[in-house]
């Protein structure tokens, strides 16, 4: 009776130890170029600056912002919670660890789309999942969120909602200041209620 359990214990410990001592798989999986091409044509990798801003304000735990600009620009200003990853180190251990995190939506951004697109291509080729690009990068973000354009003509309600959201977001990021004037609406100062939602699970499940 006891001997049976001793053997099983040794077997179990050896199996577990095996995982620790086995050499790490060095080679990276590369995906089929055809699949990669499909991904390049597909536009679902883009998130708008408004979508990203929403998720920052909601404090979405599944969001991981990856800043691919040079370190000095990152130090001057970066989106809250963003991690600086220089394109050089995309395929280094720290880079793959960062981008390989399960359960996170990795959102790349640079000053424009240029570097982010290239980083996206390289990482997607090495099978990084849930990788997105913030369309337009920091430039677009500044122009949209920080320099809110006043509405022109007779804006629709959705436009007004969007502008008041951006105003609220601006106050969230830079503190108080004159909100951009929206001439036709009396609700301009109202803070847009941010509806918190549980992070959507990729496959649902749970208990």
């Amino acid at each position, binding site marked *: 009776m006891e001997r049976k*359990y001793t053997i099983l214990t040794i077997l179990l410990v050896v199996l577990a130890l095996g995982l620790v001592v086995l050499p790490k798989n060095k080679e990276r999986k590369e995906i089929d170029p055809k699949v990669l091409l499909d991904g390049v044509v597909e536009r679902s990798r883009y998130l708008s600056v408004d979508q990203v801003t929403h998720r920052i304000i909601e404090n979405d735990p599944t969001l991981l912002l990856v800043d691919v600009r040079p370190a000095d620009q990152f130090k001057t200003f970066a989106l809250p919670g963003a991690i600086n990853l220089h394109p050089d180190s995309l395929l280094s251990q720290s880079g793959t660890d960062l981008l390989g995190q399960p359960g996170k939506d990795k959102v790349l951004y640079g000053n424009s789309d240029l570097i982010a697109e290239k980083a996206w291509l390289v990482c997607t080729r090495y099978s990084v999942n849930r990788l997105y690009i913030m369309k337009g990068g920091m430039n677009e973000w500044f122009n949209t969120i920080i320099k809110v354009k006043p509405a022109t003509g007779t804006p629709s309600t959705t436009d007004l909602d969007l502008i008041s959201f951006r105003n609220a977001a601006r106050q969230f990021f830079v503190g108080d200041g004159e909100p951009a004037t929206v001439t036709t609406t009396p609700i301009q100062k109202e803070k847009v209620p941010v509806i918190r939602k549980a992070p959507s699970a990729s*496959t649902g499940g749970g*208990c």
Partner: protein
Amino acid sequence: MKKINNDGTFYLNPYLGGVILGTVLLLSFYISGRGLGASGAVKNSVAATVNAVAPQHVERSAYYSQFAGGDKKPMSNWLVFEVLGVLAGAFLSGIIFNRLKIKVEHSPKITERRRLLFALGGGLIFGFGSQLARGCTSGAALSGMAVLSLGGYITMIAIFGTAFGAAWLFRKNWI
């Protein structure tokens, strides 16, 4: 191997049971990418019932609207099918090991009525807690532990730690 006594008292070796359970859990992850669960099916059934009785209420509720209402179909959920499977599997095992019998199991020191009241109360509290922690012992703790989720380990420690203390409070019901 000694002969199995077929009077309903034969149980699998716990380690063998654990290996079978672990393999099923592993297969579940391999096939559909998620672990096993039970309380999620209750959640979906409750949402489906409320949705049938008062659909507007579901739309308005911040909780139900996450998984019911609109075009979401809570009853055709993976977990509901899985739970039907659990019933079938347990029934099968009950037949094989001769344990099928309608009765209330309780310590000889307490009445049947008291046992049922505590079962009802315990179920109520457990159901409540499972929603707060986003899963029960199987969905949050066991499946969470398998994928090394921090939340799974925390929930497991909270459940077992509390149960050790609370069992002493309720010891008259058991021993």
